[in-house]
């Protein structure tokens, strides 16, 4: 069904984006990487990224903060951020 393949495609893109997030890439870098290595149109990457951002506002806020911070957070900050992400996620999921 078209829906299924769409759903799994989007899921794939999300997965790839998450990988990029681990690399602490920016949205643009992500679009480029996915296009280059996975043949995913940048517009698709961008859309999914935006949607992810809407659903995970807190995470992305912190993410961009850390992006801003002289390019890298210290480990402690990273850990802290991730911890927060997790607790936020639980809160979200608990809903």
């Amino acid at each position, binding site marked *: 069904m078209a829906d299924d393949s*769409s759903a799994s495609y*989007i899921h794939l893109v*999300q997965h790839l984006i998450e990988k990029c997030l681990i*690399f602490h890439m920016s949205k643009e870098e992500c679009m480029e990487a996915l296009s280059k290595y996975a043949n995913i149109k940048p517009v698709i990457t961008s859309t999914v990224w935006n*949607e992810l951002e809407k659903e995970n506002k807190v995470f992305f806020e912190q993410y961009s903060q850390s992006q801003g911070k002289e390019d890298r*957070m210290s480990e402690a900050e*990273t850990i802290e951020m991730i*911890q927060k992400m997790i607790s936020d*996620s639980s809160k979200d999921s608990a809903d």
Partner: protein
Amino acid sequence: MLAVSPLRTTTTTKDEREGDMANFPIDNDDFPDFSSGNLLDSIDFDDLFVGIQDGDVLPDLEMDPEILAEFSAVSGGEESSDMNTSSSESIRKVEVEESQRKAEEEDKISGSSSGLNSGVQGEEIASKRDEFAVTNTSTVAKDGGDRGRKSSTSTAQAKNSQGKRKVKVDWTPELHRRFVQAVEQLGVDKAVPSRILELMGIDCLTRHNIASHLQKYRSHRKHMLAREAEAASWSQRRQMYGTMAATAGGGGGGKREMSPWLAPTMGFPPITPMHHPYRPLHVWGHPTMDQSLMHIWPKHLAHSPSPPPTAAPPAWAATPPHPPPPDPSFWHPHHQRVPNALTPGTPCFPPPLAPVRFAPPPVPGIPPHHAMYKVDTGIGVPTGQPGLQAPNFDFHPSKESIDAAIGDVLSKPWLPLPLGLKPPALDSVLVELQLQGIPKIPPT
């Protein structure tokens, strides 16, 4: 016997059965070996239970008065062959019953106390014979148990001459949870169906239902424990590899094996039991395997510009394979869906992420959150490694690393999401894409 033919010799029966019915796989472990049983050995009881559901079928409480009377009359001897004979005749095949019973009795003895119905013994014998599960005499129960051997049950019985009907019990997560609670309260090994029933206090369950469910539960637990053990040993091994890698890396010079960097697969919470598509081991309410994989990766574990770490991949990529569904049956319905997209929050199967400089890999059963918080600042900073700067080194991930990571996702889409972010609504994304001019994805 069951369904159609009245008294027949077992041999005949068997043949006929085989001819007529589908074959069901027998779970040999669960059934006693009827060594004494002449024919019984050869009988494939699965055949008997065509269309019979699992043992969670309520015994049919409506018994013919005559049969009841017979049973009552016989009461007493649990294993009285006489009883068998007399009652069986009206109910089942005599010979089969008899031999079965005898064989069973021998087998059952081990597990049960006398007062118990086949319910308990029926652990082996799957109280599928629910039609008698009701409180009849133990003999009666035993009849039930005898028949019930295979997981399939009473449905067939239901169709038999007595016209008994079995009500199927639906083991919902809630029901199961109560069951598990009761069992744990009693102690798994000591849990007796009648007590469990009492503890659960649910009217529509019979001892047989409980007994068969208990049997499955125990068998499942064994699997889980075995897996846990395996996972634990995997974890240890990873740790060892990690340590080795670190040492090697430290000593080796130039190459930076930033293994921890790889694949921070975080099994994101919530790890609520039961409802997850990917929850192979959790069905039985034991929060063991589910949360074992929660590692945190400080993001900036050195990615050196050098080629992707080689030590890591083995540690990581060689993740113990998702356990193939040990039994593709009722217990692991979810396994079928494992290869599909995993939703965020999916618990990761234990492991193994290159533990290298991490706190000991999460032990199964330990809530992942805690494991995560244990990451200490020493993580990922292989001090001693030449060329490795403190956290402020240049971090841009190398192209190779990115390519490798992406390639990995593309080739293994079933892997859990590394961060487990909440996925956006499908519709919303599709609409948005359409607005951007992409009518259909994946684009052709």
